[in-house]
């Protein structure tokens, strides 16, 4: 989306949805005329708005012109609109649905928060045959992997992937401690024996140097990027890397450009979760806490199959924010929870058939009272999501225009989906805030946040999660610090709560 102003959104001007009936259009028109007629409304912009209102009615009241207009606009861009009725399903049909916390907000003297939830489906069906997959395992063989069965867990996780990979897939392995070593060059899955021998050759010894490991992996991976299929890099670690985070992150941005996805898997309690999360998020991947073999068993085949059956090759969100608007958070709530970067462009990762992307945007709008008036439409964000198909062909584009009417706060409640998404995000942040309070040396505040979180989870029927939170709270009350593993359990527990209810339920069904 360039800098040109898009065609006016006539539905927005009349304050109706794109599937409004002719009667609704007429009624909205009459109301708008009463409100904006220059004889009655003396504000400076009344004349201009009045002309727009008439123009809107001219187009929308004529079925042929309206149809033409709807098609040109690909009606998915207005907040809280349904896909237009009567649009044939097909690769070009609009796939994006946007809901916002409030579609009308007051222009205030102070900043305010505003949320948008983007629900995007792939325009293409799941492929009948899986895409060939090139999977690089970057495996931790530092000394600490000796303990607590972590090495066995890592190997088990890799085997869950190997078991579901197909003969045409390829695997490479890099092992790392103080320095990385290529344990297995890219090898077709047909040679499973060689892959197993490389996996068995992992020997613990030394520290954790992640940047060198990913650099080495990239040197090899780059030479053999899969043209037909997908290349993914899976980093497993139980530790922290010191001082080389930025090198690894800038490398991850190169991967994103090349269409390579990186997923990260933490083992045990000591790994640096924000680093692993950022590393994965740069590429549209996700980070996980592998606390047990059963987690790996559930998670890993699901991930491999998502890559095999991905409906798009790449999904990328580019956007421009209006001046002084801040994107304070961008969360992918489905299909895999991730805290995405807030700098455009953002890689969204992949979905398979039946899955969708669900993105929650939290924005802070500047004080608007001095510069804006009621009745105006305030543009918050312009952007587009580009979906690249498999096998060539142009990107499918979905325009993302977030705008909000200025006026009295709508008496309606925020849409249910937005409320739920934000509520889950709030739980996640309470847990995070509690840990931050603890690390700042404010155990009292940390406990209070945890108690409040447990009460909210209880009230919403999330009893297991509430029990986990209470357990940590009790430990704090007794004067003990929660173990690093407790913290990971909380972090990933509340993160999973961010999944939408139906996904959550489907997971539970699958796992039971």
């Amino acid at each position, binding site marked *: 989306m360039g800098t040109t102003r898009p065609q006016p959104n006539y539905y927005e001007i009349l304050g109706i949805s794109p599937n409004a009936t002719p009667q609704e259009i007429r009624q909205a028109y009459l109301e708008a005329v009463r409100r904006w007629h220059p004889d009655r409304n003396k504000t400076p912009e009344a004349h201009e708005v009045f002309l727009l209102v008439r123009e809107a009615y001219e187009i929308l009241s004529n079925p042929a012109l309206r149809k033409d207009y709807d098609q040109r606009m690909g009606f998915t861009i207005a907040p809280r609109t349904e896909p237009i009725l009567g649009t044939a399903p097909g690769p070009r049909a609009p796939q994006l649905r946007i809901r916002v916390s409030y579609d009308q907000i007051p222009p205030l003297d102070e900043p305010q928060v505003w949320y948008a939830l983007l629900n995007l489906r792939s325009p293409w069906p799941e492929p009948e045959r899986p895409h060939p997959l090139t999977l690089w395992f970057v495996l931790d063989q530092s000394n600490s992997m000796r303990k607590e069965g972590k090495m066995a867990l890592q190997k088990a996780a890799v085997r869950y992937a190997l078991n579901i990979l197909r003969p045409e897939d390829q695997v490479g392995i890099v092992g790392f401690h103080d320095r990385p070593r290529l344990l297995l060059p890219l090898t077709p899955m047909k040679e499973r024996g060689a892959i197993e021998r490389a996996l068995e050759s992992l020997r613990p010894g030394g520290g954790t140097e992640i940047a060198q490991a990913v650099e080495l992996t990239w040197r090899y991976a780059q030479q053999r990027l899969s043209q037909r299929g997908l290349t993914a890099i899976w980093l497993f670690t139980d530790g922290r890397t010191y001082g080389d985070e930025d090198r690894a992150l800038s490398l991850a941005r190169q991967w994103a450009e090349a269409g390579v996805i990186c997923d990260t898997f933490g083992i045990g309690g000591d790994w640096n979760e924000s680093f692993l999360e950022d590393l994965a998020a740069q590429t549209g991947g996700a980070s996980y806490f592998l606390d047990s073999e059963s987690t790996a068993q559930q998670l890993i085949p699901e991930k491999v199959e998502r890559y095999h059956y991905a409906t798009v090759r790449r999904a990328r969100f580019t956007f421009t924010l209006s001046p002084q608007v801040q994107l304070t958070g961008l969360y992918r709530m489905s299909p895999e929870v991730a805290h995405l970067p807030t700098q455009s462009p953002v890689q969204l990762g992949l979905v398979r058939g039946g899955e969708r992307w669900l993105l929650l945007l939290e924005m802070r709008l500047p004080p608007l009272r001095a510069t804006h008036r009621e009745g105006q439409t305030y543009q918050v964000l312009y952007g587009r999501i580009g979906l690249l198909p498999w096998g060539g062909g142009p990107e499918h584009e979905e325009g993302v225009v977030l705008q909000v009417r200025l006026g009295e706060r709508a008496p309606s409640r925020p849409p249910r989906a937005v409320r739920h998404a934000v*509520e889950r995000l709030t739980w996640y942040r309470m847990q995070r805030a509690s840990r931050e309070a603890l690390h700042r040396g404010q155990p009292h505040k940390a406990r209070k946040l945890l108690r409040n979180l447990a009460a909210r989870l209880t009230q919403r029927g999330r009893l297991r999660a509430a029990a986990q939170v209470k357990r940590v709270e009790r430990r704090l009350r007794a004067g003990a610090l929660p173990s690093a593993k407790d913290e990971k359990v909380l972090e990933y527990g509340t993160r999973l709560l961010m999944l939408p209810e139906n996904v959550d339920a489907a997971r539970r069904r699958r796992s039971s």
Partner: protein
Amino acid sequence: MIRCPVCGATALEGSLYCSECGSPLWEQEQAHDETTSPQTETRLLDACPAQVQLWLERDDVTVDLPGSGPWDLGRAAKSLPLTAYIRPQDGVSRRHARLYWENDRLYLVDLGSTNGTKINGQRLQPWQPVPVRDGDVVQMGRLRFYVHLIPHEATESNP
């Protein structure tokens, strides 16, 4: 700035939930309208150790709570177990309190009600669950009832 009605923390305009206590900051009265997901019920079905009976002294009626909970008590909907016995002057909120089983214990939590909830005369902090024992007396606004826990074997042998 807006102020959270439950904990008093401040938040930016337009915020939907309080970052300190997690309470909804959009229209309060409707905030508690949502029922618990049905999954909760099935998950707890096996774990429910006793039948919960509420005895309303005033009307001398016994209300058996159906299923395994959680049960919301209030005047929000006819389907809630106590609604039929609540009078307007009782000062009971739409969703006043919740009873639920957890780890074989029955808990009571006040759902941020207007007139509060007491157990054995002690006022509950909103959103802070407390355990309930057989024979405890609960007061929601001015409505009083006793909680009785009937072991399952007993309900089966004396229907």
